[in-house]
């Protein structure tokens, strides 16, 4: 069930430098799962396309969206005031296969602005054998306190100011973390490294991809990624990130 409606902005805050959150009241919350996303429509008509934003947390009738101010659209979102309406479409995409993390050792990995969707996944896997691994630029972290309430948290920072200096893969090596399953969202170099690690270590990895989108519902074919199997829409090994994704098993995609 996908809904396009005006949501109501309940609360908005700047979590760290350029990273904002908004809590919105919407019917979409009743259908949202970890790893899904919503399209948020800017009000400025010169900004034509909606912005795909991952779902950070789902609670009673509300969604928590955490995003980085990247361009004109997200800049506009960051200026919204409480009580304002925000047009959204969602929930979109397949989401993380939560069942695959039950009864197994999982590492949930978020890097940069790929960190937010890991929170709702961690909540869904609460009580399971889970380690959360988050990569940030520096000590200016976000959502780290929320993560600690769900599971043990390991941190990598590029400048080494907190946790392990380097990236999330450096943490796995240095701390000798072992797992059966990885769930990850983050920048492409990180996802490539996870795909390689998973192949070399016989681990199953589910990675959430990002791609430029126009429609968000599978009509425009803008956001495809190369797959090893025939995609369901065009049968040309080009799956739609917005519809068949954004989460793929790493061995199924060429990235």
């Amino acid at each position, binding site marked *: 069930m*996908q809904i*396009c409606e005006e949501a109501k902005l309940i609360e908005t805050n700047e979590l760290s430098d350029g990273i904002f959150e908004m809590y919105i009241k919407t019917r979409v919350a009743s259908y949202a799962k970890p790893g899904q996303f919503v399209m948020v*429509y800017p009000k400025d*008509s*010169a*900004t*034509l*396309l*909606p912005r795909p934003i991952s779902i950070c947390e789902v609670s009673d009738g509300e969604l928590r969206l955490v995003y980085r101010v990247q361009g004109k659209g997200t800049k506009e979102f960051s200026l919204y005031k409480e009580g304002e309406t925000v047009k959204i*479409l969602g929930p979109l995409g397949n989401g993380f296969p939560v069942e695959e993390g039950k009864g197994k050792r999982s590492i949930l990995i978020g890097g940069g602005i790929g960190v937010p969707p890991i929170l709702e996944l961690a909540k869904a896997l609460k009580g399971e054998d889970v380690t959360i691994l988050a990569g940030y630029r520096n000590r200016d972290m976000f959502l780290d306190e929320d993560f600690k309430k769900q599971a043990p948290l390991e941190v990598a920072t590029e400048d080494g100011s907190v946790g392990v200096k380097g990236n999330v893969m450096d943490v796995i090596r240095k701390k000798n973390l072992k797992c059966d399953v990885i769930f990850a969202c983050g920048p492409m170099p990180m996802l490539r490294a996870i795909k390689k690690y998973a192949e070399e270590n016989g681990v199953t990895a589910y990675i959430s991809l990002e*791609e*430029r*989108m*126009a*429609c*968000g*519902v*599978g*009509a*425009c*074919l*803008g*956001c*495809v*990624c190369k797959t090893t199997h025939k995609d369901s*829409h*065009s*049968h*040309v*090994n*080009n799956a739609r990130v917005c*519809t068949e994704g954004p989460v793929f098993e790493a061995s199924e995609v060429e990235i």
Partner: protein
Amino acid sequence: MNTSVKIAGVEFKNPVTTASGTFGSGMEYSQFVDLSRLGAVTTKGVALTPWQGNPTIRVTEVYGGMLNAIGLQNPGIDVFCERDIPFLKKYDTKIIVNVCGKTVEEYVGVVEKLSEQPVDMLEINVSCPNVKEGAIAFGQDAKALENITKEIKKAAKQPVIMKLSPNVTKIADMARAAEAAGADAISLINTITGMKIDINRKTFVLANKTGGMSGPAIKPVAVRMVYECAQAVKIPIIGMGGISCAEDAIEFILAGATMVAVGAANFTNPFATVEVIDGIEDYMKRQNVTDINELIGAVR
């Protein structure tokens, strides 16, 4: 109040359809829009065999518009006939199938496969700027356009719409060539070739370097071209290019379009098509227009 229009003997309940490539085959939008409200659904381009399309990045935003270089990814005509046409037949709307190809033979092959299918019209895409072979090569040269139109007309069982490119010196000449070769209608404009450069990475944003521009920013160009073609030919015109509301649609109709198509606006607002239809009716009430046909080409 009459909002129905006729093109080549096909009657549409209202003059609003979708621009090819922005609406799939309607499936993805059917949860937001009752497809039976639409005058017609114009499908994403379909070729003889499955096409991979271009590498990503395929879409990017520009001021008041967007660029796309999808490269006509599609499942090919066989899957299309098995899956998409039966889906659309469940609705009370007309079906316009957009056809693409790399050679005249490929276009004709698709048209022949569609001849026994329950579709109402064919729109021939000779104007996609994002594929290297075929397509645009037939749409930028009047002789080539005339030739392919004739070949398609020989094979087609349904009325044929030739979709024109704006990336030409004189679009009226192309309209005349299509009409002379027997086209039943023309549609315009396809996207305007554009480019966006990422100044931080110092490279092109789109993997294809160039892409087709659509969205509100191109509307004045499209209205002008519809007007020029309306002055040049007698066959009906389906007008498109940046239509996002009823007022935009009415500009095209007054300039000479019998029907209009909503394209990139579907991305900005999934309800755009029905809002345009409702808005046209409101306009007709306000202006005391009893038949939409009175508005077609009313501005000279």
